[in-house]
């Protein structure tokens, strides 16, 4: 890996920023250069929210991801807005319980997971973000399965054991989805 640019996009309240933070911590723990840039202000309180994460082996210039290698779309406006910006040969991950249409691009790899429905089926309400993240981590090769738990331990404080376990369960569910 030289540089991977990842864009997480969806509604405010879906945990978009936290999803990006998880990936950023993993980058930090593996000694890479990392940048994490949220959209901020009224957008994160109900409008569209997005989060740029860059992982690189060399110093990062602009922290703004306008042409992602990997796009995680958690609502239709996000897919509409960013599908065409994704680099050719990139990957697009779609929450298919919230987005009915398919990815139109044929020069990218597309992945579908009904993350929001899985979350409610499995009593993991509000953790669709971690489910789709799990799917992305597997197919992008950004994180090995055994790296997930130690990263979670870094991101969620040990005092909040319940949160730790639920998040871990969600991310593993996504990781193993379709296998």
């Amino acid at each position: 890996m030289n540089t991977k640019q990842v864009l997480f996009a969806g509604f405010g309240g879906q945990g978009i920023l936290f999803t990006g933070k998880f990936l950023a911590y993993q980058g930090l723990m593996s000694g890479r250069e990392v940048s994490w840039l949220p959209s901020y202000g009224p957008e994160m309180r109900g409008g569209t929210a997005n989060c740029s994460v860059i992982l690189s082996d060399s110093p990062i210039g602009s922290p703004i991801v306008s042409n992602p290698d990997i796009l995680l779309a958690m609502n239709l406006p996000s897919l509409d807005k960013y599908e065409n910006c994704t680099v050719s040969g990139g990957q697009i991950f779609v929450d298919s319980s919230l987005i009915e249409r398919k990815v139109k691009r044929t020069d990218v790899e597309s992945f579908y997971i009904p993350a929001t429905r899985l979350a409610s089926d499995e009593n993991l309400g509000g953790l669709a973000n971690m489910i789709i993240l799990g799917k992305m981590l597997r197919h992008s090769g950004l994180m090995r399965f055994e790296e997930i738990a130690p990263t979670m331990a870094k991101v969620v404080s040990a005092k909040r054991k319940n949160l730790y376990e639920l998040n871990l369960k969600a991310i593993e569910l996504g990781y193993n989805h379709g296998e």
Partner: protein
Amino acid sequence: MSEKVLMKGNEAIAEAAVMAGCRHYFGYPITPQTEIAAYMSKRMPQVDGVFLQAESEIAAINMVIGVSAAGKRAMTSSSSPGISLKSEGFSYLAGCDLPAFIVNVQRGGPGLGGIQPSQSDYWQATRASGHGDFRKIVLAPASVQEMVSLTFKGFDLADKYRMTVLLLSDGTIGQMMEPVSLEMGDVTKYDKPWAVTGTKGARKPNIVNSLFLLPEVLEQTNIERYERYKSIEKTEVMYEEYMMDDAELCVVAFGIAARVSKNAIKAAREKGIKAGMIRPITLWPFPKDALADAAHRVKAFVSAELSMGQMIDDVELAIRCKRPVILCSRAGGMIPTPENVLAALDEAGKIGG
């Protein structure tokens, strides 16, 4: 090397201030810098410090004046409209020769403007922060790590020269997270015989004041202050040169604009365009000599800014208009893309031929 942690730019400023020995923070919330106040509200009680949410920005800067007059390190932070409110305080700090550390995490203006990142307070920061003849040292971080190192250094410079140091950042660097090392070294302590600390009947009272009704005396205070400024211009200039060794075109950019420009310069090099960058880290004192020297070697300059074009004045002054300077600008909360900077480099290459 110490373990790195992921921190937001705003939080990094706050932690670095605590490490620099600041125990008095006064502020009033405003996007996009509120994380500084939020962090301080948790952190200050842990170190027996004072966190106080003032009733207004004006109150906060006046509290800084009070604490500084008592010889302690103090800071306040705000974003553009809030900084305008503090301008009277900046002038009084200068007139009283008091150290202070101020943070402006800029957003688009004028007026209430917006809340997205901007650099359009450049003139305010480097020229007209308030009435009267005075300067502030203005530091421009381009990474979360520099939020730490320049805050730590800023407190030192403020005490060393008895003046205000302004950290001029923007919403992007304030909001982003990057790995940082918090290893900073020791804090230098400065004697402050002028501080109002109580005489205990043992000495003449110290008076901190900016009123001098005799013009001869007032002129003298100004002249002495400007002597100090001259020495700062000689010794405290900071800048980074990026790919300047064989550069034929020179981008000048600070903060987030410099980060974007690095991408553009890499892309330009791939196209065979010999571009480089001089990134001012101190906006005052501005790296005039480095630019004047580059003007002998490069064909043209590009000033890349998140404003309608403010720093470009300093670039043209520094190079005495010897070479063309192309403006690459976005305003109102928009950020130039690497493609914008690349297009400006293309234009500069044609004009500067």
